[in-house]
């Protein structure tokens, strides 16, 4: 038994690139389809992150699943060619900058820093106050500065606002099914507040199907999806 550790990653593109590189693949649609499951697996292990950030990861997950489905069912007609070609393109571009950053790091390692002229030690050369400056103007400036701090300080708080993990959702679905034996997907989404929560629910559902905890049935396209305990 051996484990390959995925290095720290930041954002969906970073994770995707690391997965593809770990498999030693080129960036192609086929590779994207190949790592789709691993990507989702990693998502489930994500520590608590912000709803906004999770949404970024999930949108990419949805694209990957779409690409994979397309590979699995090549005879079906799929629209939106642009859409997922876009993910491939973005990932390739991102990779170019990741590679460039490595070269920049190598340049930094050579320590070829350059220096501007040494500044003489500071000593006050006199007293040169700003023109027409008053305490009132200072107070006004300071209020502006404080206003600018609000988003900076609030960001970390907003992050905690509400996070839904796929694990949480899986547990939720399992509970529902164990109580009712049969549940509609619509029912699962009843309390979903955001788009990302809907996507999380769907991913959780796929996971349960994969683990053979539930089966799903659907009469027609776009009709209600029913979940049943296996």
């Amino acid at each position: 038994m051996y484990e390959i550790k995925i290095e720290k990653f930041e954002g969906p593109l970073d994770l995707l690139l690391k997965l593809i590189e770990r498999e030693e693949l080129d960036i192609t649609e086929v590779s994207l389809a190949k790592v789709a499951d691993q990507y989702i697996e990693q998502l489930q292990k994500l520590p608590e992150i912000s709803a906004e950030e999770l949404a970024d990861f999930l949108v990419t997950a949805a694209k990957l699943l779409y690409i994979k489905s397309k590979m699995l069912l090549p005879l079906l007609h799929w629209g939106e060619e642009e859409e997922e070609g876009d993910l491939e393109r973005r990932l390739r571009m991102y990779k170019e900058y990741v590679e460039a950053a490595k070269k920049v790091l190598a340049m930094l390692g050579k320590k070829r820093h350059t220096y501007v002229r040494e500044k003489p030690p500071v000593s006050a050369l006199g007293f040169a106050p700003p023109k027409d400056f008053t305490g009132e103007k200072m107070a006004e400036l300071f209020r502006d500065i404080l206003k600018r701090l609000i988003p900076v300080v609030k960001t970390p708080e907003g992050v905690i606002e509400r996070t839904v993990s796929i694990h949480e959702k899986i547990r939720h679905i399992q509970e529902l099914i164990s109580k009712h034996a049969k549940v509609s997907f619509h029912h699962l989404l009843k309390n979903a507040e955001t788009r990302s929560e809907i996507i999380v629910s769907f991913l959780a559902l796929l996971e349960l199907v994969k683990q053979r905890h539930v089966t799903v049935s659907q009469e027609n396209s776009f009709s209600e999806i029913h979940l049943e305990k296996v």
Partner: protein
Amino acid sequence: MSVKSEIESLLFVSSRPLSVKRLAEATGHDKKDVQQALEELLAEYDARPESGFTVLRNGDEVQLATSPEHAELVKTFLKDETFGELTRPALETLTIVGYRGPLTKAELEQIRGVNCSLILRNLLIRGLVETEGGKTDDPSAPATYRVTFDFLRYLGIRQTNELPDFAALSSDENLQKLLDAAAAKAAPTEAAPEASIEAPQAE
């Protein structure tokens, strides 16, 4: 004395980068004349073998600095400890700003696929990135970010176009061309991708 010589004096004595506009103001010459004298000066420096100093350029600003060959010597002499370490995300962000700047936060985030507010803030505080303020007439235009002279000095380059593969990586369009060329080389015949994933291939 010539405009060139005046400019050289001011560049020598200034403790911060100077723009063509500022140089024109200070010397009382036309911006055009200043620009031309500056070009001549730079050409002269470039032509000088084994110079102890060089000219850094960033946007329309210029600053004199020591040659990168003497980094160690000067560092020891000045007892300088300003250049610290960068985390990987910070390095990546800085690299993108270096190649693509001036660019907006939205453009940066499109490339990295992740929110960059905090990283940008840290780079601004470290003085490796700056916002290009007051450069545009439209006050509602989003702020753009670019690297600073400290970034150039950190790397030991004179301008951002000395970054590796600068031409290819400095615009979406060029980058796309680069990728297309690489793809064409990898797959000369546009073969259908073999779907080698677990699914059986439908024929």
